[in-house]
Structure formats: structure tokens, C-alpha cells
């Protein structure tokens, strides 16, 4: 045996390296911001473009980058072997523990939102929007998080669901509750249809094909004018009713029937609970499926496709069911979107929607149900918070994403809890294999 060499990695303070690091950071910042921030463009009185240099702001940004680079060089020194600076173990543990009690508390809070914020229409609308994205995130989580199939065209199923409801309701007068399953099934069907050609693809290739699929659906919606109304969209989509009782100020309306004073908020509250119920349904189904052989097969597929096949799993079916399930929930969310808006057009179903939902899943920590909720809340809430600083909104958003990916490269909630535990000590009987709650 040869003597093994020991490579010492000590955190030596190397000022030159740190300085170099800082210069590189500053140069990068300069390159990035020179035009973005260093020069401000305004429309002059004559209609021409006026350029105002802002060297001060630019200088501050470059200085920040320089100091940041220097500090990083000094603090982390030569320990380049660390792939990413992580949160300390204690913080991670706390985060994980809080996570366990967090879910029930969050649910209770969600149920109470319409009561707490009854008079705040803005909050109610925002919560409905967040819940819609939570539902979309959970739906996509089945495909991306569990089955590991990178789908960049998820918005296609959202669109199919929305247009299914809109067209069926406006043309045939079916109610929301009748249309909901139909839209789900139609989206599901498109999911399978997309699934077939991409069965052999993985990773990047799959991503590109699904991206194209999303665009195809959008272009069809724009160009098939006779059916979809083209770019003008579908107006006058019926609002949901409370088991047949419409939310209006008239005789047979919700308020009159229950002897209440008419208020537009009733409908909003109702919509809130509808999307909450739909989202919880998605979550419940996902958690149930994860414990069944099919859910286990999805996760195994994400880990190793070849091993799956040699263990007797028909990976074709497993992939198709993942696509179909994900698409179905996307379709549900789509018809909810249509009934909430009352008007839909292809503009609501662009790639940026797919990207947003995917970002929610990835930031949440692929496969984590709670992570999706947190990520959706943080992202949509963040969008709203920074609405006033419109010009810095995307900058802050981008920085936040980078920060999360640096500190928690596997997403906010990266720990995956097994779907099954064994109660032991007395030997195992078939009934003793207990399944863990999501």
C-alpha cells in the first residue's frame, strides 16, 4: 500500500486572493450596471431620448460589489472546497422543526383569512391569487418535484382548463361545477398527448419540447379565431354560483336568499374558499398518491429510470400518469382562473407563467408541499410589496432568487420525509407498516 497524501485545507487569510476576488466582483458589477443604472433614459420635451448619467449610483453599486467581494475573500478564504456556504446546521434544524408545526398553523390561518381581512378587498384578491399559484405549484410538483420530469410548458394545461371552462360555459351554458371535472379531464387528455412524444426524453431535451408545447397551445389559442376568439379572448364567462344561487343583488341572489344585505365581498369570499378547497384537494391527492405504489414509482423514476425498469416498473405508464395528474390539476386551476376573471385571453398564458410556477416549485424545494406554499407566498407577496419601486422590482426579485439558491441550493425545504415508516420492536406483521403523513 502506498502512503496516502493528506491535503490540508485551512482557512488561510490570503489578502491578494481576496483583493483579486473583489476586483472581479466590482468589474462584473460595473459591466452589468454601467448601462442598466449608470445611464438613465428619459423622454425629452421634443420626444427624443435624453440620457442622464448617474455616475454616483453606479459608483455606489460598484463599491458595494467590491466590498462584498473583499469580505467574501477574507471570510471564506481558501476553503473553496465548500460547494456553497450553507445556513448553519442549527438554523437548518430549527427551520425544519418549525416546518413541522408550521403546516397546521398555516392552514388555520388560511381558513381565517376571509374573516380577518373581510374588509380588505386587496388582501382577499391577493390571497386568491397566491392560492391559485399554490395549486399550480402543487400540480407541477407532481411532474417536476416527484417524477423529476422538467416541464417548462405547464401553462398549457392551465390554458386548456381555462378555455375549456370558458367555451363550454359560454356556448352550452353548463355551470362551473359541471365544467370543472370536464376541464380537468380535457387537460389530463392533453397531458397524456404531450406525454407520448416526450417519453424518451429527459432533462434538457424534455424541457425544450415542453416549452415548445406551451407555445403551440398559446399560438393555437391566438389563431383559431372562430373558436377561441383569437387575441380578443373569451368575454362574459359565467361566475360561479353558490349551489345554483348566483352572487348578485337580485331577488334570487345569495344575499336575498339568506336574508343578508347585498355585498360584493360574498363572492370574493366564496371564490377564496373554492380555490382553497381545490388547492387542498390537490395537496391531499398528492400526499395520498405518494404513499401508494404509483407515487413511490414517480419518485424512484426521478432517482433512476434504468433501475426502475429492471425492478419491473413500466416507466411509460409512470411518466404518463405523472403528466396526466399534473395536467389535471393545472386544468382545475385554469377553470377557476376563468370563472374568477370572467374574461380570458391568450395573454394570460405566456411562458412567464410557466416560469413563475416552475420557480415556485424549485425555490420551494422540489417535491416539498410546504415549500411550494412558502415560495408562492414569498414571490407573489414580494411582487406586491415592491410594486411601488417598479424599476427595482425585478432586480430585487432576481437577487432574492440568487440568495435563496446560494443559501439553500435545494430549495427552502429540502428535506424529503420518507412516505413510509415501520413500527417495530415486536417483529413485523403486514398491518404494522405504517404510512407517514406527507
Amino acid at each position: 500500500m502506498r502512503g496516502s497524501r493528506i491535503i490540508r485545507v485551512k482557512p488561510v487569510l490570503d489578502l491578494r486572493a481576496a483583493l483579486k476576488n473583489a476586483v472581479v466582483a466590482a468589474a462584473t458589477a460595473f459591466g452589468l450596471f454601467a448601462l442598466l443604472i449608470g445611464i438613465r433614459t428619459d423622454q425629452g420635451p421634443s420626444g427624443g431620448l435624453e440620457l442622464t448619467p448617474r455616475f454616483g449610483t453606479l459608483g455606489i453599486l460598484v463599491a458595494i460589489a467590491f466590498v462584498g467581494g473583499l469580505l467574501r475573500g477574507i471570510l471564506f478564504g481558501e476553503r473553496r472546497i465548500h460547494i456553497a456556504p450553507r445556513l448553519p446546521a442549527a438554523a437548518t434544524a430549527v427551520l425544519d422543526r418549525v416546518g413541522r408545526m408550521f403546516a397546521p398553523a398555516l392552514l388555520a390561518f388560511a381558513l381565517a383569512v376571509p374573516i380577518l381581512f373581510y374588509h380588505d378587498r386587496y388582501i382577499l384578491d391577493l390571497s386568491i391569487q397566491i392560492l391559485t399559484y399554490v395549486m399550480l405549484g402543487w400540480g407541477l410538483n407532481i411532474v417536476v418535484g416527484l417524477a423529476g420530469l422538467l416541464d417548462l410548458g405547464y401553462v398549457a394545461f392551465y390554458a386548456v382548463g381555462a378555455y375549456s371552462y370558458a367555451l363550454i360555459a359560454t356556448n352550452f351554458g353548463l355551470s362551473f361545477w359541471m365544467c370543472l371535472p370536464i376541464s380537468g379531464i380535457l387537460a389530463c387528455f392533453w397531458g397524456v398527448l404531450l406525454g407520448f412524444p416526450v417519453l424518451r426524453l429527459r432533462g434538457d431535451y424534455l424541457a425544450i419540447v415542453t416549452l415548445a408545447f406551451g407555445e403551440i397551445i398559446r399560438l393555437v389559442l391566438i389563431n383559431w379565431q372562430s373558436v377561441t376568439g383569437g387575441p380578443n379572448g373569451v368575454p362574459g364567462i359565467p361566475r360561479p354560483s353558490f349551489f345554483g344561487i348566483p352572487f348578485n343583488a337580485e331577488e334570487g341572489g345569495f344575499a336575498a336568499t339568506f336574508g343578508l344585505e347585498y355585498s360584493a365581498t360574498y363572492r370574493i369570499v366564496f371564490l377564496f374558499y373554492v380555490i382553497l378547497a381545490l388547492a387542498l384537494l390537490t395537496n391531499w391527492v398528492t400526499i395520498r398518491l405518494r404513499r401508494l405504489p404509483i407515487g413511490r414509482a414517480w419518485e424512484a423514476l426521478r432517482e433512476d429510470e434504468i433501475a426502475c425498469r429492471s425492478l419491473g416498473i413500466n416507466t411509460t405508464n409512470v411518466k404518463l400518469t405523472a403528466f396526466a395528474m399534473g395536467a389535471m390539476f393545472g386544468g382545475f386551476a385554469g377553470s377557476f382562473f376563468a370563472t374568477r376573471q370572467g374574461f380570458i385571453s391568450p395573454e394570460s398564458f405566456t411562458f412567464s407563467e410557466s416560469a413563475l410556477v416552475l420557480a415556485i416549485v424549485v425555490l420551494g424545494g422540489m417535491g416539498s408541499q410546504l415549500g411550494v406554499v412558502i415560495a408562492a407566498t414569498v414571490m407573489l407577496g414580494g411582487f406586491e410589496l415592491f410594486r411601488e419601486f417598479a424599476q427595482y422590482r425585478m432586480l430585487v426579485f432576481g437577487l432574492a432568487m440568487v440568495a435563496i439558491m446560494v443559501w439553500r441550493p435545494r430549495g427552502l425545504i429540502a428535506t424529503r420525509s420518507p412516505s413510509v415508516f415501520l413500527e417495530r420492536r415486536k417483529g413485523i406483521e403486514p398491518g404494522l407498516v405504517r404510512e407517514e403523513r406527507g
Partner: protein
Amino acid sequence: MSAASAPAAEAVQGSEPLLGLRGVKAFYGSIIALKGVDIDVYDGEIVALIGANGAGKSTLMMTIFGNPRAREGRIVFAGRDITDLPTHEIAHLRIAQAPEGRRIFARMSVLENLQMGATTAEPTHFAEDLERMFALFPRLQERLHQRGGTLSGGEQQMLAIARALMARPRLLLLDEPSLGLAPVLVKQIFDAIRQLNRREKLTVFLVEQNAFHALKLANRGYVMVNGLITLTGTGRELLARPEVRSAYLEGGRA
């Protein structure tokens, strides 16, 4: 061809082999990896396949499972032609494999990995089979809820074998079960294989670099060179052959 091979004492002579390969050729793209391989594995035997790196041993294991598919020749298992069956259907015929590289589901727990192994088995066997695996590899019981990817190499190897056994196979294919293991563990794994073969009449076909151990364990062995079988005989015969000794046991532990 097969007349040249000497069936083991235990094998029922003249009967059909459990697994039979005839003139099997397999390709990666246009590169040929198996150039016409004949192999017989009889019920109740342990058969070892040895050969240098890149000889095509792992390819052979995978070709039995249809990936890559045999482009020429026939593969028959238990009297049924499986040459053109899809991989997952082959697995349902009760052939199981602990493949090269182990292919553990890294983010899933040990228990979940074992559950995946039981995909083709009767669900009612699960608890009993789990107990058998714990008896065979007590280490797995201790690590039951640990993520597969965080197990040590040896533990992963045990898990890969246990996962394959959860299917209650008639034939177990093992690709380098001793790879990267300490001598004590190698002995433990080989003992486990012998025990399964004796007590449960499990038929085993294994690929090994550890030629000495493998040929001592096996009833019969095959030597593969560049995609072709060049030598075959009982384990003891092969161990005595000078060409085997020089090529695979050089500086050996015999």
C-alpha cells in the same frame, strides 16, 4: 458449443437450462459489445462470469434484461423466449438484478428502496421478506429510515442485493457484488449468496473481478474476453487453468 461446457455436479444434466443464451450479439450504436455469447445457467446453480475490464460482462447482464437488446441470438428463461420482451416484463418473470453501480434510489429511504424491490412480488409477502432481509443483512435494519444515498458503499451493496431479493426471484443476477468492499464484507456477502443458494435454492449468476472468491463460490464459471466466451468449466477447473491464473489471479490470494 455447449457440449464443451462442463455442467456442475448439482445441475440436472441434459435438462433445459433455467437461463440459456445462444449466439447473443449486442451493440452500443454501431460498436459491438457482445460478439455471440453462449451461456447456460441451470436451476440451483451458482455461475460466475469473469473477465477483464471492458470485456462486456455488465453489458451481458443488461442484455439479459433487454437493455441493450440482443440484436442477434436468443435468450430463453424458464422455457420462454425473452429476447424481445420489454425490461419491465422480464422483471416480472422473477429475474432480479443487483446492477453495476448499485443504482440505489438515493433520496429514498432504505425501506422505500426495499419496497421498490418488491414491485413484482405479492404484497402479502412483504413483511416476511423484510424480516428475511434483516436476518441476512442486519445492518439494513439499523439504517431502515436512512436515505439510500447516504449509506456507505458496502451498505449500498447490501441494499442493492436485498432490493433484488425482495422480488423473490428464481434467478439473481449480481454485477460485481464485492466491488469496493473490505475483505470482511466480501466474505459476508459471499456467505450470504451461498446461504441463499443452499437454503432457498436460489439460482445465481454473478459477474466478479474477484476471480478467486467467485470461482471458489461458483459451481461453474465462464471467462469472457472482448465480448466472447473463451473458457468455461467448473470453478475448480478454471482456478487450475494457467491462463486464468496468469490473467486474473496474478499475485492472487490463492
